[in-house]
């Protein structure tokens, strides 16, 4: 299941990434912002994606920064909170 989530997340990240930062070069635990793959405010797009695709209610669960800043953090969040 995690692999399927991973594919969907990476597919989405490809739509918002900066063109000259290969997604493959970013390790799963790397910060998406600090690696230069996305800019900081693009986190809103990740939030919107997770709300729509996995019905995660961020207002209800609260959020720690680490949960959204790397692919592994996002996958952990999906596994824990997706409905």
């Amino acid at each position, binding site marked *: 299941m995690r692999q399927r989530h991973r594919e969907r997340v990476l597919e989405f990240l490809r739509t918002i*990434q*900066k063109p000259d930062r290969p997604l493959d070069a970013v390790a799963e635990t790397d910060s998406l912002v600090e690696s230069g793959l996305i800019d*900081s405010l693009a986190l809103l797009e990740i939030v*919107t994606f997770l709300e729509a695709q996995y019905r995660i209610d961020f207002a209800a669960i609260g*959020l*720690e920064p680490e949960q959204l800043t790397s692919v592994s953090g996002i996958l952990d969040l999906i596994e824990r909170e997706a409905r």
Partner: protein
Amino acid sequence: MRDGHDEARVLLTVGRLVEPLTGRHWEPPAVAREVSARAARFRRAGLRPGDRVFLHFGNRLEFFAELLAIWRLGAVAVPVDGGLTRVELERLAEVVAPRFSVVDGATDAAVARALPSGVAVVDAAESLPAAEIASDAARPGDDALVLFTSGSSGVPKGVVHTHASLAARWRALERELGLAAYARTLCLLPTHFGHGLICNSLFPWLGGQDLFVTPPFRPDLLIRLGALVDEHRITFLSSVPAVWRLALRVARPPRGGTLRRVHCGSAPLPATVWEGVQGWAGTREVFNTYGLTETGSWVAGTSAGEFTPADGLIGPPWGATLHVRRAADGAACGPGEVGRVWIESPALMRGYLGRDDLTRQAIVDGRFATGDLGLLDERGWLHLRGRERDEINKGGMKIAPAEVDAAAEGCPRVADVCAFAMDDPLYGQNVGLAVALTDRGDAAVRELYAWMRERLSEGKLPARWWLVDAIPRSERGKVNRDGVREACADRPPLDLARIVGER
């Protein structure tokens, strides 16, 4: 805050400086020591009144000490975006002709290579012996600050403020807004922006209030914004709508009840976001502010009486006179009538650096042409209704499409090009690019992308690209950017990640 002959003096009543992320902080006596030591270093190195100094970093304690040290010697501070490309920096250096360039540990090594020979590079992190500079060399009419904005002619414009114009802005804000609500001010905005530096930071801090400064637009900070406000008992912060769109989704509201006032500016604030910020902050004192770098930033805002958030609502002026005039004949518009917005204020810039021609166009009879369209209601409150000039407002950063055009036009693969504003759910607007290439293959797109990367800093790079056969122009050669945008809207943009990634 300041009066009479003290107008140009700096370091009168600064508050504490705090970096919440690192825990570093300077009490006012430490600020005074740091400023004196840095001023003594500049003096030893030969900095003279009127000299200009690049500051390549910001949003940390040392930035403010360097700024005041430069001012104490009567020199001129030029804070710039640390992410400028080499080409952009070379262009600014031609205009500014700096004597010194101040860097920190995070500054790209390419900065020094982009500067003309003869510019002395100073490391802000170097430890300095204690020194005393007895008095300020600056006079009220002296140039104090140059901030760059995107120019409609494709060349960035350096907005020059004097000590007198800055002091006039701060005096007006203190008179209109008081200082009590700004006792513990948080700055999340870049300090090379007029909004972030002149108003969010220096207005409270040089008035003796405490300033908490963070790196700009850090996502982990925005997620923790409520906790940050509580932990440091923040009473005030300012930001831009794009930041609030994110913070309202991911940051839990503050619980301590310390937040007394919030400002939002630099881009249109939708009423829904405005109401969301009021709910999040737990105060009705969320003021939509209006101002431009040329006016010393905030010149009006929703600070008086009862108001209901509404799209375009700004409010009464703060130490300025607002004029709305008809485009056709320049006559004053009546209440409710939409026209061009002009601003009259003692805080107006002295002019654009080295561009008296542009200054004469912008300031007519002491009034500044904002390029905005709006109306004054029966109370004299300003309501904005749009922008007359070509401009892309990306989350508060103003980008002239002509600057993007100019960067692309030099590429040998480009036959014609048109940058335009496109709607963006995150930033409000973003940069779109329609381009006709001499060769439609992917290699030509990659070449143009690499060309643009060398010439435009990240924030100005087009987010979406469309290949077109030609850019439609009028008989006079003028491009209709709205028309180009509408033509592109029906077609998918280039898959730039695939094309560029295939190198």
